[in-house]
Structure formats: structure tokens, C-alpha cells
């Protein structure tokens, strides 16, 4: 066998749990060559992140266990190297972008320090590192890079944090970059920039890119080869084109078939009094104006999608509506009453009617509560919803609905994959049967097959129970399939609003048009031809 840049052979990873061992990765093999991009596709929870973590020596052993296998890097088995030898490789030769950027950034250090540390840890002087950190922030498109260096992770938006992770990983120009869902929180325009940046770097240094993603469009755009995983096993490998056009495994076929953006668009039918009317909402963090006068209505049983640039204030909008953040101005009328001016006591009574799925699911789950406790807490708080005797049954039902197994109820949040946690958060929001669910990137970490299942579930709830959704997403095909109305945001401003059809078929604002144009097609051939046509302008953007 020829020498690959990195090669994983027959990797088996198990985790200990109270209910017995769980095999997360079951005999996985793949390789990556210099200058190549390998995409790992797969169902949520199929072992993508765990196998990447094994390469980076990030599995806690115990309770984890690498039962078998080897990871060959330049002919040496990484698994047999000493801690110190691996340390020298980490970051400098092999870098990783984590799936869950909030949890993976140290909350107590400024981002500038954290990015510089990547370099100082490998012997670069602090001054030089600071320079490069600034440049990197500029490259990943963080606004006000000088100021951003001194800010802390919690002061950034989800997508910005993800870009910070990317900047950090790229700092040492590694030979191998493992990117675990690097664009889940990025809108398509920024995603395009980031992907272009990665490719450019690849061209420059011959970096091997291992891209873990659920997004067929991204795969079509950048991947040379594809590995498809399901339930801990590799079920299919091949070039991106082959796999897309001739999927061999049933799972792969299902995956490709489930790609969103093909269904009929919703025609809004709901009428009557708005459930939620937002009037001129503003919010500023010190000097940063995150929301600059947002107004729109939401009718009962309707889905309003909020799309827009990363950092445009979408999450802020959601958090302000839920009173997690105090608004700076404006009103939000919920069934005629102003949410923002309500007393805390009145707000308590209202909480049940509005639920939220947070953008960073793992941080929104109490690490000390089992899934059962997490979901059933809703009923503990509002005992009138469900008698205690039925809790187990209902938890099992909800878990099944979001594509998890009832067995999972006994596990704790840290024992799940990113997508699984997101689904737990969704199940928790559903448990309360609210009138409105605010979904902040709620399906962004799910592979398309499960995404389709969850969207179908939400759609059904909307129809059966009349639940309304404020659906924050970057994934335009999903929005197209699910939403009734769309609100487009940029830089804290609402730039355009309208029905799905209006937005998708006849966008008025240039930003909306740019957004739609930047959307990726799951077909590698289509993407290849698009790439050719826009090659020149994309580079100019950087």
C-alpha cells in the first residue's frame, strides 16, 4: 500500500456507560493524501466526530477505549506515540476544528490570546503570533478584527465563534486539517468565503482536509473523495461524483434522496390576530448595535424563518424575545401584551407558551441531568401537562420522534454526538407543547435524512397543534421547504421580508439575491460548473 498522508485502519472505539459498553466506531478505515479533501458524510451519531477525536488523542480513556486499530501519520502509528510526541504534532501538523465552538473555546481568555496560544505553544514569539492572529481574524471575516482580539467567546455570535475556531486551526498552516462541521452555523455567503479560504490554503501548502459534514452541497463544492458512515461503520467510499450519482448503499441513497429544497413551497394560509408582533426592536451591547429596529409579525400556526448573515443579530433577536437579554428599545406584543415590559412574575406564567432551541445545544443541556430528567423537567415545572406516571412513556415517544432510541434516556449529555444533543434539545422544547417555538439553528447539525425526519415532525406539529415557529436557519433549502414567511437580516437590520415564494422567486434586495446565489447544489457536477463561472469574483472577495 502506498504511503498516505494519514491513514486510519480498522479503528474501533468503545465507550463505557452505566448500561454497558457502546461501540461508537466499529472498524473504520480511511486515508487522506496531500492536497486532497476527504469528506465524511453520515448519519448523526454514526461516529464521525469520535473517529476524528481518536486521531487527535482527545478521547477520554477511560471511560473510552480504543479497542483496535491504528492511525498512521507519516508512517508512524499515532496511537503508539508518547504524549509529548503527539503534543508536538497537534496543532502544528494536524489541527482540528470542533463541532461545538462555544464549549471548545475557553470562556475566560480573550480570543486573541487563544488564537495566539496556538502559535506560542509551538515556539512562535508572542508578537508575531499576535500579528498573525489579527490577520487570521480578518481572513475569516470577523468584523472589527482589532477589537475582536480582546473580546471573549461569549461576546460573539455562533457563526463568529465557529470562524474563530477555524482561524485558530489554520494558524500554524497544518499539514492536516480535521474540520468537524465547520460551517454548520454559517450563512451561505460566509460559508462560501470560508470554503474558499480553505481551498486556497490547500493549494498553498498542500494541506490535507478531512471534512466532516452533513451538507451535501459543501461536499459537492469541495470534496474530492467521500466516505459515508452509518452506525459506526464505513458503508461507502468513492469520489464525490461517483457517490452522488451512483450510490451503492441504501443509506447513501436515502441520504441523497432526502436532500432538502426540492418540495413545494408553502403558501401562507394563516390569518387573524398576530401571535407575536415585533415593533422596532433594538438591542445594543455597549457600542455594538446588534439589533437596529426590527419589526415583523408572526401569525398563529405559522413559520417565520429568519435568515441572514452570521452575526446579523438573529440569535440576539431570539434571546431578546425570550427576555434572556434586556432589549434596548421597542416592543414585542405577545397576544397583545408587551413581552418586554412584562413583570418577571407575568413572564413566568407566559414562559410555557414560548420555547426555544438554543444554537449551542450542548451548553443548553445541564450536564448533571440525564436525558430523562432533561426532558421530563418540563413536566416537573408544569405538572398539569402530564401526570408523572406517563413521563417515561412520553419521553420514549419524544426520543423516537426525533430519531433517538428510548435507551438514550438514561445517558447524560456528554455521552452524545452533536446532532444527538440538538435533537434532545428539540425534544425538550416539544415536551412543553408551546404555542411558539424559537428554533435557533435547530437542525443545523443534523444529516439530511434525520433533518428531513425532524422537519417533517415539526411540520406535523404545526398542522396538528397549531404550533408556530420562529425558525432561525442558514440552510436555505430547509427554509424553502419549511417556512411560510422569511425575514432576511443583515448587520442587525431587517433587509427584506416576505412569503417564501416572494423571497426565493423574486428577491428584491441585493443581499437576498447574493444569499440565494451563494447556495450550493448537492450535485458535484452542478457545483463544478458554477465554480467555473464565479471563480474570479469569489477570489476578489478575499
Amino acid at each position, binding site marked *: 500500500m502506498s504511503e498516505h498522508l494519514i491513514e486510519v485502519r480498522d479503528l474501533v472505539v468503545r465507550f463505557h456507560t452505566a448500561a454497558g459498553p457502546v461501540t461508537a466506531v466499529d472498524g473504520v478505515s480511511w486515508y487522506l493524501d496531500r492536497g486532497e479533501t476527504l469528506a465524511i458524510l453520515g448519519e448523526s451519531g454514526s461516529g464521525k466526530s469520535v473517529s476524528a477525536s481518536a486521531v487527535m488523542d482527545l478521547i477520554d480513556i*477511560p471511560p473510552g477505549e480504543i479497542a483496535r486499530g491504528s492511525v498512521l501519520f507519516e508512517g508512524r502509528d499515532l496511537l503508539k506515540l508518547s504524549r509529548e510526541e503527539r503534543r508536538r504534532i497537534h496543532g502544528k501538523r494536524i489541527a482540528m476544528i470542533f463541532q461545538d465552538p462555544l464549549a471548545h473555546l475557553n470562556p475566560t481568555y480573550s480570543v486573541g490570546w487563544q488564537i495566539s496560544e496556538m502559535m506560542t505553544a509551538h515556539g512562535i514569539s508572542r508578537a508575531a503570533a499576535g500579528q498573525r492572529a489579527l490577520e487570521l481574524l480578518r481572513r475569516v471575516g470577523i468584523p472589527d478584527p482589532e477589537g475582536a482580539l480582546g473580546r471573549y467567546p461569549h461576546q460573539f455570535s455562533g457563526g463568529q465563534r465557529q470562524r474563530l475556531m477555524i482561524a485558530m486551526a489554520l494558524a500554524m498552516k497544518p499539514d492536516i486539517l480535521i474540520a468537524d462541521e465547520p460551517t454548520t452555523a454559517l450563512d451561505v455567503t460566509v460559508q462560501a468565503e470560508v470554503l474558499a479560504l480553505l481551498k486556497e490554503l490547500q493549494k498553498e501548502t498542500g494541506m490535507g482536509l478531512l471534512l466532516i459534514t452533513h451538507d451535501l452541497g459543501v461536499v459537492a463544492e469541495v470534496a474530492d473523495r467521500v466516505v459515508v458512515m452509518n452506525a459506526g461503520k464505513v458503508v461507502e467510499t468513492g469520489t464525490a461524483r461517483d457517490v452522488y450519482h451512483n450510490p451503492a448503499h441504501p443509506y447513501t441513497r436515502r441520504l441523497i434522496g432526502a436532500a432538502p429544497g426540492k418540495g413545494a413551497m408553502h403558501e401562507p394560509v394563516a390569518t387573524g390576530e398576530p401571535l407575536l408582533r415585533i415593533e422596532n426592536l433594538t438591542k445594543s451591547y455597549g457600542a455594538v448595535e446588534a439589533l437596529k429596529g426590527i419589526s415583523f409579525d408572526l401569525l398563529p400556526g405559522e413559520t417565520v424563518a429568519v435568515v441572514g448573515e452570521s452575526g446579523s443579530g438573529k440569535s440576539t433577536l431570539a434571546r431578546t424575545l425570550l427576555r434572556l437579554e434586556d432589549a434596548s428599545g421597542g416592543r414585542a406584543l405577545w397576544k397583545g401584551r408587551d413581552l418586554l415590559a412584562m413583570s418577571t412574575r407575568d413572564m413566568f406564567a407566559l414562559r410555557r407558551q414560548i420555547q426555544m432551541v438554543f444554537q449551542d445545544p450542548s451548553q443548553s443541556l445541564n450536564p*448533571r441531568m440525564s436525558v*430523562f430528567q432533561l426532558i421530563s423537567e418540563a413536566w416537573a415545572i408544569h405538572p398539569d401537562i402530564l401526570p408523572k406516571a406517563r413521563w417515561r412513556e412520553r*419521553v420514549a415517544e419524544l426520543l423516537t420522534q426525533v430519531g433517538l432510541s428510548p435507551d438514550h434516556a438514561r445517558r447524560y449529555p456528554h455521552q452524545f454526538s452533536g446532532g444527538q444533543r440538538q435533537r434532545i434539545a428539540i425534544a425538550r422544547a416539544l415536551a412543553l407543547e408551546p404555542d411558539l417555538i424559537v428554533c435557533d439553528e435547530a437542525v443545523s447539525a443534523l444529516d439530511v435524512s434525520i433533518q428531513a425526519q425532524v422537519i417533517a415532525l415539526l411540520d406535523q406539529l404545526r398542522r396538528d397543534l397549531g404550533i408556530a415557529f420562529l425558525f432561525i436557519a442558514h440552510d436555505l433549502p430547509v427554509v424553502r421547504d419549511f417556512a411560510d414567511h422569511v425575514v432576511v437580516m443583515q448587520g442587525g437590520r431587517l433587509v427584506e421580508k416576505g412569503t417564501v415564494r416572494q423571497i426565493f422567486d423574486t428577491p428584491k434586495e441585493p443581499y437576498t439575491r447574493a444569499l440565494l446565489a451563494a447556495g450550493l447544489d448537492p450535485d458535484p457536477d452542478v457545483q463544478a460548473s458554477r465554480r467555473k463561472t464565479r471563480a474570479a469574483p469569489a477570489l476578489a472577495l478575499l
Partner: protein
Amino acid sequence: MLSTEIVGTPEAIAVPRGTAATRVLRMLYRDKLALCAGIFLLIVITCALFGPYLLNDIATRPNLRARNAPPFSLAHGWLAVLGADALGRPLLARIIVASQNTMAVACGAVACSALVGAVLGLVAGYSRGRGGQIIMRLADIIMSFPSLLLAVIVLYMLAPSVGNLIVVLAITRIPVYLRTTRAEVLEIRERMFVQAATVMGASRMRIVLRHILPIVIPTIVTIATLDFAFVMLAESSLSFLGIGIQPPQITWGLMVSQGRSYLANAWWLAFWPGLAIILTTLSLNLLSNWMRVVLDPVQRWRLEMRKTEA
């Protein structure tokens, strides 16, 4: 009460392996040190409950013939294996009898201060209003109020009693718990899952007790276990004022301080009760470290793992 609720998760859906109690015991069995600690504490508690009824007479009757009898000799009966004190009373019997008062005072004082401190700390940390500020300034005042003065004041205003002793000891220790709890709460309340709970409509009470407290508890318990030793020793210095436990009643702390003048020629007088205090503290701390692991799902494998391997 809260901790057991967390440990004893209702075993949802999947078949539970044994009841919550047996699971906890199994986890205790895995940690041999904690097991020993548990057994030792059980012995101490048994002594505390029954010792005084069985041995009180032997432990308080002076017998000058056995004065300062050295340990490890059976000449004065098996109860004197640890030696006898300055009045010839067997030390073993005295330690057993003293465990009741010692435990009553130490448990009382530590529990009161930890409870009050933690509750106030939760309030001060979670409420951003004026109330929290006032609590913190009160803590400042208590912190700089000399405990001896407090003791003297209590002594003069109230009749000396074990209850007052506990009050004095508890009040002086409240600020540590209060400030530690508050510091942790300040950070934890910023975490996302607390916001998630708010969104679900959880009351402040629930957020504080169910989401914040479990994370603070291990730290509080760690401090509390060490405070146990502190309280046991401090209590004897208040006996000197006439508050609380008075000779011929005994506590370990009192035994230690009485043995002080004999350090040069009869070390065992202070040594054995001192050892009892050390061992109790050690046991409590081992148990609290064990509990920290049990309560933390991320760490719990340490106590579950060997089950599958062994």
C-alpha cells in the same frame, strides 16, 4: 435530600439494574478507601448513639490509681488499652462517650453554617438586587467580628447551652459558605443551561436548587468536611468560657485541650482524641470526594467501570 434525588434517578425506560440504593452501595464498594471511611463513620455514629448509655460511668469516674496509665497495657482493663487520663479514666471509654457530644456539636454547627451560608449565598449570587448586596455586607461584618467576642456576648445574653454553642460556631463559619456559594453562582448563572431552564419557565427556586446547587454542592461539602475538624477543635476553646460542653461532660476537642499540658509526659492524652478527630475528618473527606464523583456524570465511570472489567 437533593443529592439523593440526583443519584437515584428514576430509571427511565431501560431496565434498571437494582434500586438506587444498591447502585450507590455498589459504587461505594468500588472505592475501597471510601468504603473504609464509610465503615469508620458508621462506627463513630454507633458510638455516638449508644456509647454514653453503656460507658458513661466508667468514663467519668476518677481512679487516681490508674492516673496517666500508658497505652497498650491491659493492667487497668481492656477499656484502658489506649491508656488513661490524668484522673485515671480509660481513654477509650472516654473517646466513645465523647463522640456523642462531639458529633452533636460538630454536625450541628457545620450543618447550620453550611445550610444558612449556602442558602444566603444562592440568594446573594442569583438575585442581582439590593438583597444580595445586603447579605454580602452582613457577611463582611460577620467575617470581621471576632468569634470570641460573639461567644462572650452570647454567654452574657443567653444561658450557656449546647444550642448556643452551635449557634456561635455556626455564625462564625457562615461567611465561607456564603461567599463560596455566591462566587460559584455568579459564574454558573451565566451558563446556557440556566437560561434554558428559565425559558422552560422554571421558577427561580427550581433553577437555584436543581440547576445551580448541584454544581456548588461538592465545593461546599469539601469545605464542610474540613470545617468538621475545625469546629471540633474550636468548640473546646469556647468551653473555656463556660459556653456549651462543660467537664465532666466531654468532647474530643475538650480531651485534646486537656491533654495539652501533658504533651511532654503523657502524649496519649491528647493523641487519641486528636487521632479520632483526624480520622473522622479524613473519612468525611474521602466520602465527600467519592460523592463528588458519584454526583458528576462525567466522572461517574470511575466507580462503574471496574464492574465491566473485573
